[in-house]
């Protein structure tokens, strides 16, 4: 399935319902959305889909690394990918976040997500 460059977001979230909602929120914001329920699955998507421009990840995730470590890994390997980190459990110190990454506390306002995406200079197809 060919994805349009510049318009693909990857949601990493283990809770299916919450992931579904995040996918819809990003879909409403104009993204094509890929969903991963674990951090290894998220990395696999990034390797397969270089067109991914946004990682939207939860912090507490099953798997060998958590969402924060995933974000750092993505920053290291795919420097151009924008990152939004969400959590209801931990509020990371800004210094703990990868450079340029934004943090959102759960539950979040869908409009806030759309605004943040625009602020980060992403131009999804709408």
């Amino acid at each position, binding site marked *: 399935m060919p994805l349009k460059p510049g318009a693909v977001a990857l949601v990493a979230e*283990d*809770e*299916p*319902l*919450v*992931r*579904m*909602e995040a996918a*819809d929120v990003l879909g409403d914001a104009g993204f094509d959305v890929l*969903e991963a*329920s*674990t951090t290894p*699955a998220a990395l696999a998507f990034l390797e397969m889909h270089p067109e991914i421009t946004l990682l939207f990840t939860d912090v*507490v*995730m*099953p*798997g060998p690394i958590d969402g924060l470590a995933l974000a750092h890994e993505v920053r290291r390997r795919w420097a151009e990918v924008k990152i939004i980190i969400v959590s*209801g*459990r931990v509020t990371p110190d800004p210094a703990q976040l990868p450079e340029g990454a934004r943090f959102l*506390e*759960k*539950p979040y306002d*869908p409009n806030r997500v759309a605004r943040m995406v625009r602020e980060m200079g992403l131009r999804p197809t709408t």
Partner: protein
Amino acid sequence: MYGVDAEAQRVQQQSDVAFLQSVLSSSADCIKVLDLDARLTFMTDGGMRVMEISDFNDVKGCPWPDFWTDQGNRDALAALDAARSGGLGHFQGMAHTYRGTPKWWDVQVTAIRGPDGLPQRLLAVSRDITAQKAAESHLAASEARLSTVMETVPVGILLAEAPSGRILMGNRRLAEILGHSTLYASSSNAYGEFVAYHADGRPVDAQDYPLAQITSGLCKKAAIEVLYQRPDGERRWIAISGEAIEDEQGETVGAVVAVSDIGDRKAAEAQQDILNRELSHRLKNTLTLVQSIASQTLRNAPSLDAARDALAARLVVLGKAHDILLAGQTDSASVDQVVREALSLHDDNGRRFRVSGPSLFIGPSAALSLGLMLHELATNAVKYGALSVPNGCVNVGWAIDGTGAAAEFWLDWREQGGPPVTPPTRKGFGSRLIQRGLAGGEVALRYAAEGVECTFSAPLAGLRVDV
């Protein structure tokens, strides 16, 4: 001239004797003269008063040691011996007056020497010290009471004088708490020898202690909680609470502090903090779920009425899954319970579901997801599948394949006895949720002619991760 001089000398002598007698009789001491055998030969008027003797003849010639009994008698004999050999006999003892009033006496016995320089008679001077003795014993009793209180109260106590801050005393409980005997610091500047830390890890300065604050006149009351470094290496949370001791003018003359071990309280507070944080996280997670359920329900509902009913039912399932989690001793839920609770809403005759699987516990996040997915499967079955006809039923079974890190959980949903099913044309909330499956797992949804079949599988390890 000689006669005149002698007369003058005689008058002078008479005058001197009268003077001496008036001195003696005005003394409050009991002054007695004894012969060398210790018999009474003379007693001053003042002495007769304190000894309650009205006529000296009643006691004249009596042996003086007979006024004393027991130890007093032995002390009196020893004092007499000392005086006879030219020394000073001195003792304190209790003796009754002539009328039987018990009194304490401080007694000095000395020799009165003759012209040859040898002891000729003995002088015994007894001072009534009853009042002083009473005050002393009152003080001793008061000190004994204070000491008993100090040693039995369950808090550590430390006493210091002001303004120096010199430590005067500390009790046994204090030593138990601090792990060392009382540190008799000479001034508040020396309180630096106590090693303690504030909650933020800063060392406690000598002048931070309540004893220093109060004895230096900064305040009348002070309190602090510190982590105390005991010599045995243990660190203990202690509360120090002090008050000024004031004189009649209200000047601070000292300070007393109570020191208590608050380790248990601190541990309970820390535990409470953890619980509160955990509760807050749970609540946020639940709110996120509710937000998602509400938003997804509204997105996918054909009408507002349908949305209201669907939302209510989904929140009930969420509530039941929470009940199971809260009832558990550990932070996990039994799959059996999650399945039964999620399906109970849809079991109209008590025979709709055949549930079987091993006893298995999963984490909160997986339990909530599984409960919601089963609810959606059951909702669809009631609308279009096996549960839409009187004799339809559903088999729900689960198991674990493999062991250790490779252990895989699967749960199978199999409808029977319903009408022939076809894949839905429109994907609603239920099918979208079901398709996502459990964390890190897969879903196989089949619209077989004999009924819907759905299999969830996921690594067991992922299902036990906390939210």
